[in-house]
């Protein structure tokens, strides 16, 4: 007993120091300027171009006789890179080769379809960032939300419209609970959210896998596959522009979620408290803000937003029944999206669409030019690298360090004012 009472506080203190440092680093990474985000994307695309050129067979061939006919190599490099990026563009935004506008614009709707869950999950992760927490539990929150929404969608019979709303609410609740557990543990016991979210990912995965193998739970009746039955038509997001496109009404929920998060963070008092705790938890505490409750609410809302991604997967994208891979890694991509969007709602919206475009265009690029889709993954990874290493990007582009560029300016102002006082 005495051992625990003496070691526990000491551990608590060191954790406090550690978490302060952690919050500072988080702030540095998530608080970069928009310029950093844009440059990171551009630079990642340049490195991607180099990789495309290197892996292109024609480039390799022509490199063999570079010194006799260098133009061959340069043309091959140009053809490979331009071809790949043109295919990426045509596969994600606008297809020039299509015969009419309605077909030509289809890639853009594909991009938005892919972007839908990424934006939702990105908003969840970004919100947690703003409160100074790192939510890596996207996978678990998505799976639980998908399970809850999916179960309501195939097992409950309700009139059209109401059925969809109930399914969405069930999913949001599932995500909120799964995220809320993390907030509760952090608030009550001081458990670090990174550890807890990672662990809860596994708990959720195996829970869903178990339910998918249990007849009467999530498993489709009369089947041995770990897969649910198809969603009832009354609970599925309607197509936005008819059956010609995959884009469904789930995109509207994401637009609504973005507006909600914007309101929450910049117009509501709860968001004010969120940001206060995220920036300086001790000042927030002294100002009478209940920091523990803020952690709980923030993680619950974050979990619900990530859950919205899971809901969109099962009620919009894959309505024929899902397995335990339904999260499709979106919970992790969401971290990148939130970083790229600098944890700002509309930034995340834009970043989600960019990543949706990468996904949609990546397939086209592979089909049309034979460029492996992994290049897209590499580009995404490089974006994270460049954002998480702002000093690197700054050094590469000779941008000023935020701290040094600011301080002198203010001090100069201050000095001027003090001089005025003296002059008076």
């Amino acid at each position, binding site marked *: 007993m005495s051992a625990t009472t003496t070691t526990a506080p000491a551990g608590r203190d060191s954790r406090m120091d550690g978490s302060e440092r952690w919050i500072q680093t988080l702030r540095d990474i998530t608080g970069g300027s928009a310029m950093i985000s844009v440059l990171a994307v551009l630079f990642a695309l340049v490195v991607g171009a180099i990789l495309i050129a290197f892996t292109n067979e024609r480039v390799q061939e022509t490199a063999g006789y570079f010194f006799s006919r260098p133009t061959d190599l340069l043309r091959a490099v140009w053809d490979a890179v331009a071809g790949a990026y043109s295919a990426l563009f045509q596969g994600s935004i606008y297809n020039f080769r299509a015969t009419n506008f309605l077909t030509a614009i289809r890639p853009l709707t594909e991009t938005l379809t892919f972007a839908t869950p990424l934006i939702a999950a990105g908003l969840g992760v970004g919100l947690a960032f703003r409160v100074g927490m790192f939510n890596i539990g996207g996978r678990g929150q998505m799976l639980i939300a998908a399970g809850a929404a999916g179960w309501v969608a195939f097992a409950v019979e309700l009139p059209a419209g109401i059925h969809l709303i109930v399914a969405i609410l069930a999913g949001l609740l599932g995500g909120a609970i799964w995220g809320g557990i993390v907030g509760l543990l952090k608030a009550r016991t001081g458990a670090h959210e990174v550890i807890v979210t990672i662990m809860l990912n596994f708990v959720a995965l195996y829970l869903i896998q178990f339910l998918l193998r249990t007849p009467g739970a999530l498993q489709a009746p009369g089947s041995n596959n770990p897969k649910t039955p198809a969603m009832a038509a009354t609970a599925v997001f309607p197509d936005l522009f008819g059956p010609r496109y995959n884009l469904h009404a789930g995109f509207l929920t994401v637009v609504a979620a973005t507006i909600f998060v914007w309101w929450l963070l910049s117009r509501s008092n709860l968001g004010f408290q969120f940001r206060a705790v995220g920036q300086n938890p001790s000042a927030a505490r*002294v100002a009478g803000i209940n920091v523990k409750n803020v952690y709980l609410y923030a993680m619950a809302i974050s979990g619900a937003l990530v859950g919205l991604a899971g809901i969109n997967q099962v009620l919009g994208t894959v309505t024929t029944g899902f397995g335990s891979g339904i999260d499709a890694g979106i919970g992790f991509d969401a971290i990148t999206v939130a970083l790229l969007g600098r944890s700002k709602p509309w930034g995340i919206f834009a970043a989600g669409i960019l990543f949706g475009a990468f996904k949609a265009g990546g397939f086209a690029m592979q089909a049309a030019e034979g460029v492996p889709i992994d290049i897209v993954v590499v580009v995404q990874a490089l974006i994270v690298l460049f954002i998480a290493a702002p000093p690197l990007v700054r050094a590469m582009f000779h941008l000023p360090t935020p701290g040094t560029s600011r301080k*002198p300016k203010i001090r100069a102002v201050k000095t001027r004012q003090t001089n005025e006082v003296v002059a008076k």
Partner: protein
Amino acid sequence: MKLELRGITKRFGALVANNNISLTVESGEIHALLGENGAGKSTLMNVLYGLYNAEEGDILLDDVVQKFAGPGDAMNAGIGMVHQHFMLVPVFTVAENVVLGHEQTTFGGRLDLSAARAKVREISDRFGFDIDPDALIEDLPVGVQQRVEIIKALSQDAKVLVFDEPTAVLTPQETDELMIIMRQLAESGTSIVFITHKLREVRAVADRITVIRLGTVVGEASPTATNAELASLMVGRAVELTVHKNAPELRGTALSVKNLSVIDSRNQIVVNSVSFDVQAGEVLAIAGVQGNGQTELTEALLGLQQHVTGLIELDGKPLRGYSVRHILDSGVGFVPEDRTEDGLIADFSIAENLMLDRSSGAPFVKAGNLQLGFRAQFAAEKIAEFDIRSQGSEMEAGRLSGGNQQKVVLARELSRELRLFVAAQPTRGLDVGSIEFVHTRIIETRDSGIPVIVVSTELDEVVALADRIAVMYRGEIVGIVPGNTPRATLGLMMAGEHAPATESGL
């Protein structure tokens, strides 16, 4: 060794931190560098210590120009530094700390600690320090730790010693002892640069005084100069060090604290059965050296401490055991000790900081929505009322100067309906102009009939503000004495000795 700085200019971007500063410290001289916080003293010393490279100017030791690439070069050249925050490893012994970074090893890479012990003994004998080389740093009082820093510098054969705000953490008695040590060092030929903003100490010990303001040398003075002369050099205008106040108008006991104890996260009793009353309309100052339980006491009043026993009553209503929110809503205004850590959110705008402790209801919030129009108007009013020098209410608080940051905190706390005002170290790190402003506000608050508690480690501040003074030592109140108690008595009480005639129970 003679130290000479010639035309040192150090810029940070557009800011000129040091502008053509020249300074000569003769061998065996104590040269005081006097200036407000932010005047450029520390920058100058960091240039001297090789931490910064000056754009212009030279450093000369015995008339030889030096080039320092880092602190290592400076140390090898004979410059030692006693930092304000000690650079000691708490779980190491004195001897281990002294050799840290310059460890001598014997065969097989083993530490030669006996040589280190001998060195510590030799130096402490030379100056009459009583220091056990095998004592752990964490067991030593602050004043002794500082001596270890001095020994550490001397063990590197420092001929020029820089003391950076050395008295900030010391009791008056320890300060006096430090002065004697500095004298001894100077007599043995060491040149000393003594950085401070405390006028009394400068006059007590310095041979020569150089005053720095806004990065330039504004004048040299001799120790015979009066406080007022030095202060006006420092701030560029005549300042008053005393606060004008009338006798307190007492309006009955408002805050009553009985047998209050606080146990910290390490299970130590940091506040031990403290009892006092504060009347409406008076200032009770809590004096004492940093770290004697004052911080925990104020935090306990605000509900920020976990394990508190005893009784806290404000206007007859109990406060102990309630949330910070409840206590703030009961009318307690609080200026925290560490304004950048606990008082403000640096990335928030001035307007946002002004509503920080009222984020859950009217007038700043209606139905969950922030009232941005009201907030902007409120901020504009407070910026004008409290003379907060800024570029508007949307400027980030972190970009304000320390004095203006403190004005933001004061504006926020004093704009609520108060029944008790607690100000912890309200003027720490502020320039003289801001100190005057803060003191005036505190006295105005008192005169409006609000009980005020001021916690301060600065004796000048305590004496200037207090109607009564409670002195804390090791978690206990040594005594509560009238505001006009002589400094010598207060100094003895701060070292734990009971006052001859303690006003008990009041």
